[in-house]
Each structure stands twice: as C-alpha cells, then as structure tokens.
C-alpha cells in the first residue's frame, strides 16, 4: 500500500478549476518532484494536500495511509504526519517562534500518545536542528517569521520540518527567492531528513533545486494535469529543452484555456 494515493483529483478556487484530474502515488521513502510552469496548479496541489479551505475539492480522492485525507482538518493532517513547507511563510507578530513551535510539537506528540516536552527538553531537541539549518538561537525568541529575510523564512520552514519529523513533507517552491548558498543550505537540511520512512513531494519551477535534492521521480504538471512522469533524467530534459520541449505553453495561456 502506498503512503499517498491521489486519484483523479479535481479542485477549484472560486469558479475556476485548477486541478483537472491528478493521479499520483507516493510510497514510503520516495522523493517525488513536481515541476511545471507558473499557473499549472503545483502550489494548489500542495495546499490542497495540507487542507487549505480556500480550495474546494470537486472530485477524486486522496488516501493517506489508507485513510481519506480530504475528510481531515488541516491540524489533523499535521498530526497524522503531513507537513507543508510554505512558498510564502506567514509572518505572525506577537507569537514567538519558540512558543509556536513548542505548541505545534506538543499537540502532535499528544495526538501520537507521546508525552509533551517541557521548555528544557524542547530546547535540547531544537538546538541540534537549529545548528543543522545554521540558524541563530535568537530566532527562537523572535515572532514567527516577522522581520525574517527570505532565506531565513525558508530555513525556518525546513527547521520546523526537522523538529516536527513528518511522514510526508510537501515542499512548495522552497527554492524560490534563494541565492545559491541559501539553496545549498536548505537542500542539505532536506537531504539530512531523507529516510526510508519519510516521503517528500518537492514542488518546483526550476530544475536547479533538483541538482541538490535528487528525486526518485519527476512529474510534469501542466494545465491541472500530470502530463509526463519519469525518473530524475526528466528534469534534465526539461532543463535543456524547456517546457516548450514537452509541448507545454508557459503561464497564463494555459490557465486561460
């Protein structure tokens, strides 16, 4: 049984259909890259998996560990081991990073029948993970993402992932806006978290990220459907020939159809 089984998934925002029948199967330990031009539905897919209410699922099914994922609230999905690294991490003034992450970790631990961590144990746990992401501990006392640089925000996402240890991580354009050093750092963090028990869906516009996070499978999303799947060599082909090489038009032309 696969960890995640998406069948003929349709989703709309307002009157507009964005996902027009997605099929995808992800087994434990696999890393799947989802590539595609802007407006193809990549980010929508990521957000639908995390349970964003903005999108309405109008057809199809998503099974996670054999259960109907679409029935679950966003928080229950997180507690079941799903993690979304946001393309645009949200700034939350007034809530400290530490309070936020400790509350998140303890809710997830509680739902898994584990004991909640006190402040001391929590700090011990996060110290190593912060070092992994080359993050300064002072970031813990700052409000969530508030005043963080673009790179700090993305690192903070992967840091959260390292702390929450999900079974399925969905990385939504984690590479966007990063310079090469920040990109390597983020990729190193992600690679450290690869394990036979953890699956990942890496959503990206560019092949560059996949040089550092080498996927097992690559899917090309266009016009709300997966139009081609293959191994990591597919990403290289895309790099060489562009989306046009696959007969895909970029951006709004597709969305407007």
């Amino acid at each position, binding site marked *: 049984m696969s960890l995640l089984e998406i069948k003929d998934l349709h989703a709309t925002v307002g009157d507009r259909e964005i996902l027009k029948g997605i099929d995808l199967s992800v087994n434990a330990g696999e890393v799947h890259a989802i590539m595609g031009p802007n407006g193809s539905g990549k980010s929508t897919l990521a957000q639908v998996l*995390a*349970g*964003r*209410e*903005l999108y309405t699922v109008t057809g199809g099914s998503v099974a996670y560990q054999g259960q109907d994922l679409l029935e679950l*609230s*966003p*928080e229950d*999905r*997180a*507690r079941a081991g799903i*993690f*979304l690294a*946001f393309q645009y*991490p*949200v700034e*939350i*003034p*007034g*809530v400290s990073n530490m309070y*936020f*992450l400790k*509350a*998140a*970790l303890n*809710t*997830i631990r509680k*739902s898994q029948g584990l004991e909640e961590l006190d402040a001391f144990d929590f700090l011990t746990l996060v110290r190593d993970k912060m070092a992994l992401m080359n993050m300064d501990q002072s970031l813990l006392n700052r*409000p*969530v993402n508030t005043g963080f640089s673009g790179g700090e925000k993305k690192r903070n996402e992967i840091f*959260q992932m390292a702390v*929450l240890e999900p079974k399925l991580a969905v990385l939504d354009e984690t590479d966007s806006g990063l310079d090469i050093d920040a990109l390597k750092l983020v990729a190193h963090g992600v690679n450290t978290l690869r394990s036979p028990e953890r699956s990942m869906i890496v959503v990206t516009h560019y092949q560059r990220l996949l040089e550092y996070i080498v996927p097992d499978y690559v899917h090309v999303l266009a016009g709300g459907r997966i139009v081609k799947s293959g191994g990591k060599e597919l990403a290289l082909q895309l790099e060489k020939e562009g989306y046009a090489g696959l007969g895909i038009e970029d951006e709004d032309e597709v969305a407007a159809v």
Partner: protein
Amino acid sequence: MTTGVSEQVAEWLIDFSAQEDAEPWLQEIRTEAFFRFSEQGFPTTHNEEWRFTNVAPIARTNFRNILSPATDIPLAVRKYLAKLAPADHPFVALNTAFLNGVTVHQVPAGAVLDQPIEINYHVDEQAGPPVVHPRTLIVVGANAQCRIVESYSGKGRYFTNAVTEIVAGEGAVVDHYKVQREDTSAFHVATLAAQLGRSTSFSTHNISLGGALVRNDINVVLAEGTEAIVNGLYIVNGTQHVDNHTSIDHAKPHGTSHELYKGILDDKSSAVFNGRIIVRKDAQKTDSKQTNKNLVLSDDAVIDTKPELQILADDVRCTHGATIGQLDAESMFYLQSRGIGKQQARSLLTYAFAQDIIDRIQVPALREQLEKFLFEKFHEHSY
C-alpha cells in the same frame, strides 16, 4: 419627552444637600461643581461627545451615593485639585460635587521611586445600587521618576465615577497604568487629566477589560519638548460597551506624542474610539502619531473609530490611522498546518494582537498578571 434634566438632578440634589459641609475652600469647589452638573444633567446622544454612548441606564438609576472617607488634603496640592479635569464634563462635575476624600500622592523633586504607587478602588457594597466617586491627585516634582498603577474592580451592579489628575514637573518621568476590571454589570466613567511640564516623559496605559458601560476620557496637555505615550487596550464581549475619548493637546513646540489604542470585540459588544489631537499655533515641530486597531471576532460587534485633528501650526508632523479587521485566514492556516487546533490558533492570534500593548508595560508584576489574565480569557473563550 423622557426624564427631564430637573428630575434627574433632583435625585442627586437630595444626596448633595445631605452631605456634611466640608471646609469652606472645598465646599466652594463642590457647590460650584454641583451647579455645573445641575445646569446640564447627564449627556444624551445628541451631544457630539456622547453620540455613540448612551448613558440613559446611568441617568435612570437612582443610585445611593457613597462618599470616600474624608482625608486631609495637603495645602501644597490644593491649587491643583479640580483644576485639571474639565469642569464642564458632567461626570467630572458630579465627582467633584461629591468630593470628600482624595487619594493624594506627592513625589518630591528629584526623587526616584523604586516601587510603583499602587492605588486600588474596589466596590463591594451591594445596596443602593451604590455610586462611588474615586478621586486621585498625583503631583510629581521636577526631575522625579515614578510609576503609578490605578486599579478598579468590584462586585455586582454599581457605578464608579472616577477622576484622576496628574501634574508632572519639568523633566519628570511618569509611567501611568490604569487597569479597569469592574464587574460586567457595573458602570464605569472615568476621566484622566494630565498636565505635563517641559521635557517630561509621560506614558499612560489604559487597560479596559470589565464593565457593562464604560467611558474613559483621557486628556493630556504637553509643554515644550514633552514626550507622551498614550496607549490603550480594550477587550469586550457579551453586550459590553466601551468608549475611549482621548485628547492630546500640544500646547507648546517640540512635543512628541505616540498613541496606540487596540481593541478586541466579540459577541454583541461595541466600542468607540475618538482620538483628538490638538496642535496649537505655537506648537511648531510637533511630532504626533495616532493609531487605532480593532480586531472584530463576531458579526454583531460594532466599532466606531474617529480621529479628530485640530492643527493650527504649520511645521508639524501628524499621522493617524485606524484599522478594523478579523483574524487573518492565512495566519490561521499556517498555525493549523503545524498541528495547532483551530480554537487554539484563534486564541493565539487574538492574544498576539494585544501583545504589543502588554509588552510596553514597565511594571513586571502587572505585565505578568495581565498576560495570565488574557491568556486564560482567550482560552476559556475558545469554544
């Protein structure tokens, strides 16, 4: 025609006349004040200053006046008493008419107080219903430094009609806090008047949590080079109503005022913010900033917010802004996507909204007490 002014005043006249005469200087102040009150009675919503706050429930109630025990009012401070708070404000007039005891604090010039001056007014009386007229006068000498914490609380249905006057001498540093945690059946009307000297640094934090019907008037007058922080936080639910009228008067040049009022409204509660900034003709180089932010958690809560700028000088910087909003959907989703339940996420974001006001409180014990109170309030409220 509803109850006329004369009928309203008659009830109060009986109690006023029943008072024992004070010393002549004080009796004169009282009589003058009662005359001012009797001329106008209670305000109605036709009065622009009271447009959104209907005090009919107060006007209609036959209260039993409870006088503060008489105190010895030092000669040196008598010249300030009833000179700062606006004499024509009907509730100030009423307070002064029943002035008996005054909580007086004098901070000598140059003194630096380690501990905050704590003033607690608590109403436990039930019969009547009672009305109390707390009166506070604080005189801070030149270059002195102090913190003041005023607290109001009580049980049951009663009316607190408070007046606080603060005089700060040249170069003084004064942090003032008012925490209003009255019973949710109580009425609370209060005026704070602060006369600030040259180059003083003054802050006032008006935390309004309780009361059925609450009106605060904050009047701050700045001198040359004065810095004033005028902050407030109001949190209402049920059918609570809170009205904050602030007035910051830049009478002299080079003054700075920063005002931040934040409100959280739930259920069928309502709130008013009216922020007047006056920059007099002489007050060049004034720097004034006013912000009012409201978080509205229900469909039925109502907020009326209005800036009122009277700028008579030409070389000044004045900004103002007001926002009314709900909890941010993206922030909610972000928290939920990390496993935090919907209700906890709501509590967390609501609490976070108030955080920057709480963070500015310089009395650690008070800050912690409020953090705890708010934390519990929003948790208990997360259905």
